[in-house]
């Protein structure tokens, strides 16, 4: 039963693509169920080919689902798509505004398409440029902007008609550290304004920092869905004790001891290792989202990042 209070409700959503003769059809998304609450940042994590983008394409009307149903903002996807389109914003993985139009004209065109009243367009475009720190590039063609600026302007264009739900597909992929950090601040600000954010990313630190809840998708199926804290709590990984030791020559070394055999055993082990050294620092490391991801998917994070073309997007600090 779909309700008006949820931003997205999905039941049994499935997408099957026909393949060449003799090959089994490809189940890109295989009967997923999930709910996104109003005003939350919902992370959709998974390796390449997991079905993240296909799910977004189905929810935004670009691809027809093979089976299942969904409602967005209380509107049925199958029968009320044009009403849904007016109330959502979509930022695809590639920045896709018009190279030939200026930053300002791109924003105005986005508003024209969505029927923003004429008298509101110019002030809103100026305000968005200012908010995304692009006022100086107001009259520069989109083609002449840096990668980070293009990304920021693409997000600004998706917000031009004031959507209450926004889809961000890999927003920081390929960006330098500062641009990625700036974009993450913008995403956090959206949540503060009450906009629901559906975020796909393969940067686990980014997801951990930004998302209220996370779904992990593997081969078209959701293998876990919960808050970051709950996902960590449920994982089989145990905390690790990390000790920084200094020897007589002043050399510092770091030792890590797992607590899977019991904390008392681990502490005894730490004390044994510390004999003859000065203890500089002792920390307890909780399992990270990366540990959760690896234990749930069996995939290495490095392999997933490599698939996406390196570690662009910088670290998620900030």
């Amino acid at each position, binding site marked *: 039963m779909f309700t008006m209070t949820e931003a997205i409700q999905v039941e049994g959503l499935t997408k099957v693509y026909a393949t060449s003769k003799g090959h089994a059809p490809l189940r890109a998304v295989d009967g997923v169920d999930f709910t996104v609450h109003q005003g939350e940042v919902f992370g959709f994590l998974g390796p390449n080919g997991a079905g993240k983008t296909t799910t977004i394409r189905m929810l*935004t*009307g*670009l*691809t*027809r689902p093979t089976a299942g149903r969904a409602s967005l903002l209380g509107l049925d996807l199958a029968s009320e798509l*044009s*009403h849904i*389109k*007016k109330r959502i914003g*979509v930022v*695809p993985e*590639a920045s*896709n*505004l*018009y*190279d*030939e*139009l200026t930053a300002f*004209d791109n924003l105005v*065109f*986005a508003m*024209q*398409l*969505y*029927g923003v009243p004429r008298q509101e367009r110019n002030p809103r475009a100026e305000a968005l440029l200012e908010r995304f720190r692009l006022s100086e590039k107001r009259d520069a063609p989109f083609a002449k902007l840096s990668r980070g600026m293009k990304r920021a302007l693409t997000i600004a*264009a998706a917000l031009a008609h004031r959507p209450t739900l926004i889809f961000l597909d890999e927003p920081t992929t390929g960006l330098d550290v500062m641009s990625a950090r700036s974009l993450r601040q913008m995403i956090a600000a959206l949540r503060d304004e009450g906009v629901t954010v559906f975020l796909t990313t393969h940067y686990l630190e980014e997801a951990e920092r930004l998302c209220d809840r996370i779904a992990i998708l593997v081969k078209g199926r959701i293998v876990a869905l919960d808050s970051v804290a709950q996902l960590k709590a449920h994982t089989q990984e145990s905390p690790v004790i990390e000790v920084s030791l200094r020897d007589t020559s002043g050399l510092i070394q770091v030792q890590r001891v797992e607590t899977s055999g019991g904390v008392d055993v681990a502490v005894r082990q730490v004390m044994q290792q510390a004999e003859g050294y000065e203890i500089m620092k002792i920390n307890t490391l909780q399992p990270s989202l990366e540990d959760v991801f690896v234990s749930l998917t069996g995939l290495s994070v490095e392999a997933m990042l490599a698939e996406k073309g390196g570690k662009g997007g910088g670290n998620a600090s900030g």
Partner: protein
Amino acid sequence: MLVDDLRGMFYIALKDLKAYYFKPPNISWGILFPFAFILAFAIRNPGDLRALVPGLLALTILFGTSSMEAIVIVFERRTGSLERLMLAPVRLPAMLAGKLLGGMTFGLTVTLVVLVVSLAVFGAAGTNWLILFLSLILSATAFSALGAYVSVAVREIFEAQTLANFIRFPMMFLGGVFVPLASMPAWLQIVARFLPLTYSVEALRVALSGGSWATAALDLGMLAVFSVVLFVLAVYTLARHTE
């Protein structure tokens, strides 16, 4: 929903005109290319230059509407910006109609320049303005729809250019622009009847040089049929490619 579609059509056309069409190279190419062809023909076969005007106008509309139209959609599909339009609250046929409107507006603008020059040189006596107006509009619609179909049928820009030229150049020589249909072999006359340019040239000839209303009505009707068929094919093909 209809209001959304009409608004979308209008602004998509406006955006295309601003982003792609009204650029100096396009304008000069759109005007000079048909003139160059006609001039080359006139030098080789001096005679009644006024008789070449309908062909010149038809060629100007054909190249003015279809040259950019044939690559705009495939270009936007490559850059991902077509997806922006598909995410907007505008239905696919309306989005494509906006694309057509952009191509038509540009084609008709450059044709107007050529028409004014032609009428200034040869005079406007005997012109049937209603048939002229309808011929220009329906020709622009049919050729723009042809360009749109070419653009959605391929995946690369060079393929679009190749396919557009593969269709346009034979049509130029078979459509009665340089050689009257009646002087062609019978089988070529039959082939010519499957080409929209033939009807465009014939209708413009009736408008500028006189002829029967029945001929003009048939020509205009056929241009309308080409417009509808090519537009429906383009919508169907684009819907299938984007799924």
